[in-house]
């Protein structure tokens, strides 16, 4: 601890030192209180900010995963339609077919897929709709294409 005055000697110095010490103690107590309030306020504000930021980063992480899932689901749905085109409409089963087993592991565990072979569109071609759902059904991608006898051929 440093003193504000110069070097002290004898009782005066001691008394002065006591006074000085008392005064200093009073001053410091006051100063410490202010610092504590500062700290409490700072910590509170900081905690709020940090909580917000953590929440933000969690939301960012979640959004990034959803973006990734959206990309993967869109590619997968398109891929399923192309696979159906490669087979040709005659080898497809009318109605809903569960394609969950065809979904890539990049999608969440609860992701499900359904291919619907619907009504006749043109010639022998049919409308085929692929729906991929995840997050308990809250998120999904739906693509609808036409599958002919062979590719685009009706």
């Amino acid at each position, binding site marked *: *601890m*440093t003193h*504000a005055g110069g070097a002290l000697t004898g009782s005066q110095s001691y008394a002065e030192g006591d006074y000085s010490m008392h005064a200093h103690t009073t*001053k*410091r107590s006051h*100063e410490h209180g*202010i*610092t504590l309030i*500062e*700290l409490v*306020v*700072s*910590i509170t*504000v*900081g905690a709020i*900010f*940090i909580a*917000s*930021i953590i929440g*933000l*980063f969690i*939301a*960012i992480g979640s*959004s*990034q995963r*959803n*973006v990734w899932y*959206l*990309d993967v689901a*869109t590619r997968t*749905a*398109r891929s399923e*339609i192309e696979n159906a085109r490669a087979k040709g409409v*005659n080898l497809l089963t*009318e109605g809903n077919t569960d394609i969950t087993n065809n979904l890539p592991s990049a999608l969440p565990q609860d992701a499900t897929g359904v291919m619907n072979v619907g009504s*006749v*569109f*043109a*010639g*022998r*071609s049919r*409308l085929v*709709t692929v729906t991929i759902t995840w997050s308990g059904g809250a998120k999904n*991608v*739906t*693509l*609808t*294409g*036409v599958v*002919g*006898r062979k*590719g*685009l*051929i*009706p």
Partner: protein
Amino acid sequence: MKRLSIENQRGYALVFILVISSAFLMIGLSIASVVAARYESSKRNTYVESAILAADAGVTDTLNVLLTQQNFTGYDTNKQMYADVDKGKAEYSTEVTYDETSELYTITSTGYAYRTPSATTPVNTKTVEVTASLGGQSIPARVAAGPGGLVVNGDGAIGGENIWVNGKVQINSGMVGSTTWTILGPNADTTLSVANKGCGDSTNYPIKCTGPRPGSGEPIQIVNTGNNGIYGTVCATDQVTNTNIFPGLGGQGFLYNCDAPEVIMPQYDRQELYDSMTQTLPGFACDRYNHEGATPPYILRANTIYSGNVTYAPPTFQNCGGVIEGNVYIRGDLNFSGIGGIVVADNDSNGNPITKPPIVAVEGKINIANHWSNFAPNSHGVGAIFISFNSTSTACNTNPSCNSLPSNHLYNSVNVPTVTFAADSTAVSYVFYSYFGTVRVTNGTVGAVSGQRIEIASNGGLLGGGFLTGGINKDSFPVGDAFGGKVRAAIWNIVNYRQVFP
């Protein structure tokens, strides 16, 4: 110094926390904005895919229409593919160009993806361009039946060669104690192809049938199987029952899981035929009052429009034979009854031999009844091609440029007999074609038939040597082209596919 120093630190922690937190917040918000942009981009990609798939759907739809309307130019206005609360909306428009030299069709299709069913501004638009040709070998045909299918009743029979049916085949035996008869003779090495595309209603006719199978949904129905049978190689879409379908001597019998192609009905450019006529004469009737004599009206003159009905109907024991000198266009009905042979002239007006079948196009109906003389070939073995363009559309009947019907008129016309052959005679070198309706052969023998529906009944038969002319677009015309004797399976080959960017 110390107090001052402490006093100067007042609020520094708060400021420090605020600065650091703000920095993190800014970083976080920046990342969040990037993620949001990425999310929007990924969502947009879904609409891009939807737009491309809509454009693809436009290609498929257009290819399908081109099978029956080779002059189809595409969908000028947007056609809806789907509109759904969950999926939004997708539309497409198309444009068709045909290159006669390469015989290639180019289809430019633009797909539109909308966020909601009611949206009018697309989120994304994509264009694809597909070049395609009608593939498959031209194939001989004795019968080419459209969506109305082929019906055989009683002792009707068809022998040899290939039978192409776009709809269904129904075989009914109305004869008690009939001897065995067949669609294809037991010795036939031939093909019966049944595409099962004869369903739908007046709004969408014809579409592929999707009935249950086995059962009434199957395209081949054989009633009273004890007397009936099909011999040869049989390919029928959706057929699972092979009862009374036999290989014969050279065929393969019933082919399981066979996908029969739709056949392109022979195409004739009626307008081109009409425009090639060089004179117009009134219709005539060779009947009791004017049937005798060696001069016209017996003759159907080459390149002539007859403006009314043409009738060969001599009274009993009178002869009213006719001669076909070349292509003819009749703006009425064509009727034959009584005695009198019909023959194609040996030579044209220039003295050149007629070696290609003349075409007799009729706006009305063709009725051949109680006719006891043959339809004979000329000395070169050439018969004629009789075509009725009659339908339920009176506007189309009298319009030479009408070569196709909308779904509602085709649906209503398909079961209407517009060509009836009920003569006790043979016409084995002749072809009869009902462009929009039914050909009904109830007696006698003809060479080949084509129609939206074919009915063979009683003693009617197709056992002759005639074949269908056919093909697409310019294959069967200009006038005077070779008698092709073939039709084409409706098989598209996609030569090129590319996305078009603005």
